[in-house]
């Protein structure tokens, strides 16, 4: 018993000592709420050189933390234990965070570089007038394919996936909105359709795709496609660019029936302490040169119109990642359909998964 008490005391003393050392270190390096900025972003989703440059220009110390899912990020912000000054959630997460009052409105007068953003990426359904969010990167959902394994065939539409030659060759991403959306799009319905008859029709159509589907997987889809485990994959364009970096044989196409248009956006969560610095950082990232540098590093599509001029032609002119307006017109942003509808989408997706070959 005595030993136990001694052990506890020791642990307490050591932890307090460590806490003291941390605070001492922080204060000697001049870190405090005012001149540090905590950025909460996806892993490897910013050029680290830009952070260094921002630190040098502004004199603000940046702490960079990462998350791997919107849900994890939202939970952590809702708990409020940590100070996050800037976060980069996806668009559907923004509607949710708005509902739960997790965001602070942005001061547009402090963001003069906002004018460089392409107007067609502004004022979208998930955040009217961009009160809370500024687009960071955008992309589509489309088809990655391996021309060698398809013997020269090139899918151009969702309906091409139903072709018999693709038996057991398709990998789908494990997302209810993406897969049900694909079913709806292939029937020329909207991605945000809530009409029960249309949804059932989409489900029936999807169940005829089952013989062609090899697997429905998560993040492993990148590795599996790069390893030529299957000829075709339905993925987000961001993943597609990563896969194509791994295996240069592969190609990507945005289906002609239309598809999803997604955004990752910069927001200031309610946990922010350094509002001034947060605006400074967002404005810094909106600077066309910085946006271009970042887009080149990350490989996703930048919404910054002016930045395209700073990007090499083979990136800015790449129709797969910067499709022409004819294609973009058909792309739709996911609307927040409400929990009940989302639950229904998910149940349809479960039924599709359970459909046996």
């Amino acid at each position, binding site marked *: 018993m005595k030993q136990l008490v001694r052990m506890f005391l020791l642990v307490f003393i050591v932890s307090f000592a460590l806490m003291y050392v941390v605070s001492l270190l922080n204060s000697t390096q001049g870190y405090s709420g005012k001149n540090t900025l905590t950025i909460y972003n996806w892993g490897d989703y910013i050029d680290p050189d830009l952070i260094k440059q921002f630190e040098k220009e502004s004199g603000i110390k940046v702490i960079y933390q990462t998350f791997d899912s919107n849900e994890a990020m939202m939970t952590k912000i809702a708990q409020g234990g940590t100070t996050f000054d800037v976060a980069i959630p996806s668009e559907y997460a923004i509607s949710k965070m708005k509902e739960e009052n997790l965001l602070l409105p942005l001061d547009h007068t402090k963001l003069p570089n906002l004018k460089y953003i392409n107007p067609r990426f502004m004022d979208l359904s998930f955040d009217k007038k961009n009160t809370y969010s500024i687009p960071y990167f955008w992309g589509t959902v489309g088809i990655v394919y391996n021309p060698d394994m398809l013997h020269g065939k090139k899918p151009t539409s969702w309906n091409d996936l139903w072709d018999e030659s693709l038996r057991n060759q398709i990998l789908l991403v494990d997302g209810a909105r993406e897969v049900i959306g694909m079913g709806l799009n292939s029937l020329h319905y909207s991605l945000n359709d809530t009409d029960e008859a249309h949804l059932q029709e989409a489900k029936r159509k999807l169940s005829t795709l089952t013989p062609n589907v090899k697997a429905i997987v998560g993040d492993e889809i990148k590795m599996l496609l790069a390893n030529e*485990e299957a000829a075709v994959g339905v993925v987000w364009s961001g993943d597609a660019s990563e896969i194509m970096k791994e295996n240069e044989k592969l190609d990507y196409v945005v289906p002609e029936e239309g598809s999803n248009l997604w955004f990752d956006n910069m927001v200031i969560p309610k946990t922010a302490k350094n509002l001034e610095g947060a605006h400074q950082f967002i404005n810094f990232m909106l600077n066309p040169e910085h946006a271009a540098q970042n887009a080149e590093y990350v490989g996703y599509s930048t919404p910054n119109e002016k930045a395209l001029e700073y990007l090499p032609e083979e990136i800015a002119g790449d129709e797969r990642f910067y499709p022409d307006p004819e294609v973009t017109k058909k792309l739709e942003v996911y609307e927040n359909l409400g*929990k009940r509808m989302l639950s229904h989408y998910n149940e349809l997706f479960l039924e599709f998964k359970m459909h046996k070959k």
Partner: protein
Amino acid sequence: MDNKTRNIYLIPYVLWIVLFVIAPVLLVLYYSFFNVEGQFTFENYEKFFTPVYLKMTVSSFWYAFLITAFSLLIAYPTAYLLTRTKHKQLWLLLIILPSWINLLLKAYAFLGIFGTYGPANALLEVFGIGTQQILFTDFSFVFVSVYIFIPFMILPIFNSLEELNPSFIDAARDLGASAWTTFRRVVFPLTLDGVKSGCQAVFIPALSLFMITRLIAGNRVITLGTAIEQHFLVTQDWGMGSTIAVFLIIAMAIIMILTGNRK
């Protein structure tokens, strides 16, 4: 030791049980009565009895049964042979060793092994069978699950075989029983408790497997565990997720009672 101090020593255990066993089960039960909008309702229970979830329940039980049956089939002879070896503890350690490695890592390793260009297919190629699709099939799912669960089956069986008094076997043989009869009438009935607890340790977690259904079976196998994960993480429909969990708890309780030791 008098009663008072004994009660004081009981406090941590009681607290533990209340906080981490009873409270969570009650919470799960509580949440199962709310729909997505947070209203009190029985609709989750009605929903559970629709074909989607019933089919899922049947398939969960079927796969859990397959996993348990194959584990038992492999584990019993292994445990039996183990009791006959010289360096029992060493062999036992070697069998337990893989369970020290994280489940996810092992699952990812199998992605590589069973892949189209993986060693498993290379071996088939050598035997002239040719490349097969191994990954994302029922076979790979059951195989990997059995691989993961097998130590939990071997250990209790091994222990009960160890405890078996060898003079019973000698007596059976002396009285003229054949090896098979000895096994059937003496050894197996006396180690039944080990088999039962092994089956419990495998069947119950197998019922709610979810990670490998995606990684190894490519979502071609859907279990109740997958559905719970989806409801909690994707749809945020905690009510439905909890309802499925309630049914899982009931199913597990029934299994415990059926396979329990009546003494």
